[in-house]
């Protein structure tokens, strides 16, 4: 039954990604050319409001589902890893013009060729799992 809740939040996410135009390949191209404030406005607003709400949840020790508090398990700081992995992701993001969330939402919008991109992402994830022991973390 809990699945229904996540399904509904997912629907809201799909609608938001579409109506925000964040799923647009063209918007991503425009963003990396710094020719519009649109995407920066979206991410900036989300982070500012998100940071305020997460901080309030922590200050007031609000209990979440399952009875726990809001926590975040930090990644061990490894500057090289963060920059390299981020750069690899960014190269792909600007090429296919979609990050993981929008890939699925684009499929719902009727752009079925995006399934090839999703398949590529699954291969990439699999490849990482196979070589992760050899990479700096």
């Amino acid at each position, binding site marked *: 039954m809990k699945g229904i809740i996540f399904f509904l939040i997912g629907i809201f996410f799909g609608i938001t990604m579409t109506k925000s135009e964040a799923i*647009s390949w063209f918007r991503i191209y425009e963003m990396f050319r710094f020719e519009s404030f649109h995407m920066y406005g979206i991410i900036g607003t989300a982070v500012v409001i998100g940071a305020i709400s997460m901080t309030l949840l922590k200050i007031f020790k609000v209990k979440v589902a399952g009875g726990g508090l809001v926590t975040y398990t930090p990644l061990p700081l490894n500057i090289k890893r963060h920059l390299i992995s981020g750069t690899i992701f960014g190269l792909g993001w600007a090429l296919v013009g979609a990050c993981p969330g929008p890939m699925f939402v684009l499929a719902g919008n009727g752009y079925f060729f995006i399934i090839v991109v999703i398949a590529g992402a699954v291969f990439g994830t699999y490849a990482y799992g196979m070589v992760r022991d050899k990479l700096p973390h």
Partner: protein
Amino acid sequence: MLDDLIYPSWHWSISGLAIAFILFLLTMAGRSFGVSTTFKNICGLAGAGKKNEFFKFDYKEDSWRLFFIGGAIVGGFIAGVIFPNPFAVSLDSDTIFALEKLGIVYPTADSLGHGFFPDAYFRWDSLNAWIIALAGGFLVGFGSRYADGCTSGHAITGLSHFQLPSLLTVIGFFIGGLLMTHFLLPYIL
């Protein structure tokens, strides 16, 4: 009147607020907002967990994500097919001009007319399109798993928790994105 609310795209501030609300809802539901782990779950469901512990699909911890992604696809259908914005994304004129130089005519490069995806370029019968889609997807999948998160996990969730690793990762996103957009894309497309 109601149509003016349902069909058009949203202002960036409304969109940002909505994303923050999704972060809030998933947090309250005891989950961490991050989409790229879905790819790992797909590997796990396909059986990769048998050979490699990393891909193991844990029903208790991972199944919510499949419901979420199913919803995201349905949400895309609702917002883009049932209640589509009648106007294409309004891009900056400099962007449209730059696209033209790459051989992508806007907005006709999107056959559905929304300005969401250049499917005139990304066609089923184009070998180039397959290579680029697979390679680009590969980079996104590999990069996000190595980074342990994508735009939702790092740029939204991580930054909302004031995480330095997430900030560095997002800087990486931009290093890669700027390199691709300004130096590589003109040779690739």
